[in-house]
């Protein structure tokens, strides 16, 4: 681990305010308050990106990060917003370094807010190691290409867009679709085949109803000490969201590389996160790139997503699953578009699939896991997996064409082969794609269900699967031979 162990850091109470900004110079010359920004004068010796505590006249405390230092002027973003603050009576104390948090297994089983402060009535989270929340770039030479699957217990993901340990794979959704049900189902069911598996769930900008739902769905895993929950609600301070995924990933990296767990980090909703970035950028009057988002949104998102991976000589892994809602379902929206450029594939949820009564409403043909080829198949999942997946997707494409044709000319006018494709799709949707929000399916069961659906097609159509696998797995095949 990096650790840049900090000899100056004494043990402290709160995890997210570990800076023990004790007897240090405090500054009171607040010159300007604008949006989330606080401009401080007379701030000599303040470093860029330093963490600060802001004491209000009335006795409250807020936190800030330094965005710019210019001679004796320091510009800070206040995490809890500047609402209710007045120029007079504010004292700002600086930590002398960027925000660090304490990491360790003490986080497991805890429920905290978006700044890492407990919401579960417990004491502040402590750990033996301090790490900066922004992390350090991982040397690409030390990366181990992802190889083994994370099994989610969801047929459509495990079979068709296999999640691979160390991958970053986002869920693209639209407001109103059950992406949160899907994300929590993955969070509660995912495993890495008998290895120790941990989940860090970072919620950003979720409604209170959604947060209650998340806590309820993940209670079991939390009680088992396998889960870290960081919850930033929709009416919680917006700027705090900038911190939430960074805390989540810092905790995850330590659990993975220092303690050897496979860690899955779920971040929902990244669109809310990007809005916080945009708000700060607008307040700083920066020149926007697309739709008001700053030009550095790509790099900013990359510093989060790129923290996934596997590392040579270490046992654990960090797998990142961001969830984002595309405003108006527009996949060219900057958040979705830039995410797609960084991540290794995407799982797309579509309203028309939901309308057909399917949960999870994954649009199979536009979803893709780029690392699937290296994470599935013989020795990883099952020997027939890649062939079956390719065949299922090709057959889905053909079935969609057949269905469109059927709408024009009627099912009766279709060729027998085309009708079998429609039967295949019906079977697949009913017994394979559709799954209960609490239902766990083993990989064996998932692939068996896949074969049962493929059996609706004439065997001659199954050209992408080798004869060996057809003989071994196609239902009824053995009886005939």
């Amino acid at each position, binding site marked *: 681990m*990096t650790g*840049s162990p900090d000899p100056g850091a004494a043990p402290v109470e709160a995890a997210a305010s570990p800076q023990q900004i004790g007897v240090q110079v405090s500054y009171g010359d607040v010159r300007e308050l604008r949006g989330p920004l606080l401009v401080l004068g007379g701030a*000599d*010796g*303040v*470093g*860029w*990106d*330093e963490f600060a505590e802001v004491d209000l006249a009335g006795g409250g405390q807020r936190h800030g990060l330094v*965005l*710019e*230092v*210019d*001679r*004796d002027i320091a510009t800070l973003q206040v995490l809890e917003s500047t609402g209710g603050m007045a120029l007079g009576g504010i004292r700002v104390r600086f930590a*002398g*370094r*960027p925000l660090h948090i304490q990491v360790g297994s003490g986080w497991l089983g805890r429920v905290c807010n978006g700044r890492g402060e407990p919401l579960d009535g417990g004491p502040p989270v402590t750990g033996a190691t301090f790490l*900066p929340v*922004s992390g*350090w*770039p*991982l*040397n*690409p*030479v030390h*990366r*181990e*290409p*992802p190889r083994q699957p994370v099994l989610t217990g969801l047929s459509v993901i495990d079979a068709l867009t296999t999640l691979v340990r160390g*991958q970053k794979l986002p869920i693209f959704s639209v407001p109103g679709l059950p992406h949160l049900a899907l994300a929590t189902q993955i969070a509660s069911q995912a495993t890495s085949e008998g290895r120790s598996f941990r989940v860090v769930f970072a919620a950003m900008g979720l409604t209170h109803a959604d947060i209650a739902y998340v806590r309820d769905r993940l209670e079991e895993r939390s009680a088992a000490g396998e889960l870290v929950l960081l919850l930033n609600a929709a009416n919680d301070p917006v700027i705090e969201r900038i911190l939430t995924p960074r805390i989540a990933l810092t905790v995850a990296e330590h659990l993975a590389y220092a303690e050897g767990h496979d860690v899955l980090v779920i971040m929902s909703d990244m669109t809310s996160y990007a809005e916080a970035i945009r708000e700060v950028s607008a307040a700083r009057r*920066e*020149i*926007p*790139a*697309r739709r008001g988002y*700053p*030009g*550095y949104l*790509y*790099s900013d998102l*990359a*510093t989060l997503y*790129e*923290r*996934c*991976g596997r590392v040579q000589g270490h046992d654990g892994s960090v797998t990142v699953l961001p969830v984002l809602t595309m405003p108006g379902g527009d996949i*060219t*929206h*900057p958040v979705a*578009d*830039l995410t*797609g*450029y*960084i991540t*290794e594939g*995407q799982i797309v949820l579509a309203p028309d699939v939901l309308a057909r009564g399917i949960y999870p409403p994954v649009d199979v043909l*536009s979803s*893709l896991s780029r690392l699937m*080829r290296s994470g599935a198949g013989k020795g990883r999942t099952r020997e027939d997996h890649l062939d079956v997946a390719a065949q299922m997707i090709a057959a889905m494409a053909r079935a969609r064409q057949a269905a469109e044709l059927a709408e024009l000319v009627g099912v009766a006018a279709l060729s027998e082969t085309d009708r079998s494709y429609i039967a295949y799709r019906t079977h697949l949707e009913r017994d394979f794609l559709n799954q209960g929000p609490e239902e766990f399916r083993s990989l064996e069961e998932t692939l068996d269900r896949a074969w049962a659906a493929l059996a609706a097609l004439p065997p001659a159509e199954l050209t992408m699967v080798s004869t060996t696998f057809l003989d071994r797995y196609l239902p009824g095949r053995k009886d005939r031979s």
Partner: protein
Amino acid sequence: MAPVTQRRVGNVVRVSGPLVEVEGIEGLAMLELVEVGPYRISAETVAVTGPRATLQAYEYTGGLKVGDLAAATGAELSGVLGPGLLGQVFDGLMRPLSMAPLWLAPERTGSAQANTFLERRWNFDPTATVGSRLAPGDVLGTVPDSGAVEHRLLVPAGVTGELTWLAPQSRLRGSDVVARVGDHDVRLAERAALRRQRPFRTRHAEVVPLHTGQRVLDLLFPLARGAAAAVPGGFGTGKTLLLQQIAKWSDADVIVYVGCGERGNEMADVLEGLSELEDGRTGGRLIDRTVIIANTSNMPMMAREASIFTGITVAEFYRDMGHDVVVIADSTSRWAEALREFANRNGDLPAEEGYPADLSSALASFYERAGRVTTLGGRTASVTVIGAVSPPGGDMSEPVTTDSQRFVRALWMLDRDLAYSRHYPAVSWTGSFARDVDALGAWQATHGRPGWVERRARAAALIAEADRLESLAEVIGVSSLPGHERMTMLGGRLLREGVLMQNALSANDGFCSVEKTAALLDLVLDVVAACRRLVEQGIAAAAVEQVDFGPVLRAREESGPSDAAGVAASRTVMLGRLEQLL
């Protein structure tokens, strides 16, 4: 502690991300490096105003304070160029990543790694004659154990004189003096400026093709050695896979692969993929002809900006030895974003979409360093530049895409619809272009392939006509078209699926020789001609369409990468099958 007294020092007065302003350093030159703060982060001078200067920092500037020390180095951004670059991975500032720690914190000092790099010993074979008069570019000797291509030690630019001493055959360190030319000591490895173009004698007018092994490129949109190409494509269009294929299979001597603001896992994958593959020409591994410059998206942004120039300079280093080099930059859009990020922080007036007004000249300065030249030493060599472009939202009218198009000789535009229908490589035949087609055709004609121009023209005409008919058929229905037009549509399908599609993951199909490409195209063209004749002779178009064209579609997969004869056999089978309709 560094001897600060000898140096020009000043203080930091402003920090905003990678932008650092300093004051009080005398005589600071543009591009000069300054070390700032307690970790002595490298920062490059980009503007000087009186006593104040603006710097772009190459590391994370967290904790940097107003008042921190800033010391001028008197040097520009430079890196060690010498034997041992091939097969290695460097960051955007040419620091060897294989010697860097797991986490790239700013505390690591570049010089220590560079020194380790210089300590390695190499075999040196002298070839020059002591006493002779040498000029820049003349060969002093070779380093036989450095990668797949011959490493030639040259007299540096600007050095002329009598060779008074030359090391005997021996094992030498990179930092050792190897020769004395005039009053200049030549070392095995030299620190070289990374932003400066390396000099050459003249540019060549003659156009010679680069064979990429990718049929759609070699056939429809060929690229000349020393030319530049841009590859725009939205996410998921297979841009990276296509570039990796070119890195693997193009017939260059050296590949410089610049991962600029892209994925870390991808770099690990490139490294592993190239290490496993054999180089058909040398018998070694492909990685041994490759230098990787990796500045992934989460590494410091300004080093990303430098990485593009680092890549080109390394390429020119090998060009000067007389090699043909291909530089692949994935992605130039991330590089342009770094330019934009810094310009915005600096308060520059934006032009389009927030990009600085000098974006097009910055792109031009990158692509224009491509060229096929006579080197200082009189050898013919080339640097070919291939730049990926990642247009936001797949919008091909955005500034980086449109500006790149002006400076390249070939544009390989990737099409989302083709990619979604799993047609790879998804190079659009309507949106792409190759400006050197005629000149390359003339070269093919004088090098034993007289049919090349005509064959290409027929293929281009067939696919254009098939496209037109297909959109027509969507409106009026296939059955309303006359037979010969239906045969054209059939031919379009055979051409797309049998020739233009290529399976990157297949051992037979991943790479395709010139001869096999020609054979595959002949196969399709002859079959289409035979089909047309059948229709003319009164056979129903529907009957021809029902024929199993498997031999045409499978030929690319079933015959080896250079097996033109195997393809010709498929042609015989297929033509025979069509005969039976009569």
